[in-house]
């Protein structure tokens, strides 16, 4: 699972740094170590990202082209805001080091 997570990060890097939507083959070619990766692996990863809502896709000819649905900063902001708002939740989804004291 960790390897796929790494690949997800690499794929998103490619999509973020591209000014236009990319197909699976374009991403595969642009990946570092791209020649050693299977097309199907990259395709699966990009499909997973689509299922998670991190990328949008549309048909361009026979293949899909993908683009990111949110910027990296937007993702970061969502993670941070969710984590910061779950300070004292009963379910203990996450455990902070310390909460912040309210300003006087």
């Amino acid at each position: 699972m960790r390897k796929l997570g790494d690949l997800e990060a690499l794929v998103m890097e490619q999509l973020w740094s591209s000014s236009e939507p990319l197909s699976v083959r374009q991403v595969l070619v642009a990946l570092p170590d791209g020649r050693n990766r299977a097309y199907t692996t990259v395709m699966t990863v990009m499909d997973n990202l689509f299922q998670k809502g991190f990328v949008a896709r549309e048909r361009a000819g026979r293949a899909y082209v993908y683009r990111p649905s949110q910027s990296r900063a937007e993702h970061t902001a969502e993670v941070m805001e969710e984590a910061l708002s779950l300070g004292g939740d009963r379910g203990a989804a996450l455990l902070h080091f310390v909460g912040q004291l309210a300003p006087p």
Partner: protein
Amino acid sequence: MTTPLLLFGIAALVGGLVGYPLSRAQWTRQAPRLAVALWHALCFGVVSSVVLGGMALALPALPSVVTGGLSDFLARCAIALRAELAAPQSLLLAVPGLLLALTTIGRVVVAGATTSREARRVRRGQLDRLAVAGRRLRGDHGEALVLLMDDRPAAYCLPGRRGRGTIVISSGSLDLLADDQLRLVLAHERAHLRQRHHVAARVSGTLSDAFGWVPLFRLAAREIPVLLEMAADDQAMHTTGVGNGCEVGRSGARRRMAHALLTLATARPASPAGALAAAGGSAVARVRRLSEPRLPLGPARVSLLGVGILLALAGPLLVASSPALCAAAMEFCPFAFS
């Protein structure tokens, strides 16, 4: 009739009253893990008292096929139990008794499953986003460590399976913390993961969700998270002190821990005050605790607490089965057995 009354009385007494002095007791700050164990034992005692009380009401009406097929000894116990419990009016209470026992268990199980599911959903979402938005760092101790590029200070862990989880730290935290403070923060989060504090917190959270009107459960849900933070502080100071052969010594470690707490707790910009009031409140208690030298509890008090925990866990069951125990010593028991 006395057994169910006794059990419900115990539940009312412990559930209604014991939480208040316990939440104010100072010894809990010296032995936070023991305190958490006591809170849990008391909560378990209250729930088991109610469930066993309900079952004690229901037992006379249960078909004897339930107790049939047991060994001779147990059969005699069952008969004696029924003799003790089957006063005429108690048969009317059999159905409510059974319902009480079943709905209590059911409510706890459903509340527990709901919070577990929600927590898993949140963690899954966090991990998915962190995989793409965060940068993975190499952790010193094998756990997953992720850096989030954000100015706001944040340091937290996402529990996973088998004590391994993910620690998340923001770049804002790194900017604020000195190296030794950062080591303590990471060690604190590792302690949460290794000791599986999220499970302990979820137990009290579940009871508070299911029966929030019981003072003991409400107070436990308030106190236990703070105690777990203190336990993680202790563990963090212990592991970082031992790990790098530090010359600073124990009081130095406490001072640095307090400093790390204050640095992150008072950093701006502060997040929505209301939501973090609960977590922020622990900062004050923890810094205050760290500014005093560590005084472990003496063996006498620890033993006393151990006895208290055992009583809370086993007491209701002993009370519930006391008629049967009485029947076991048949020569001395007033129940005639012909």
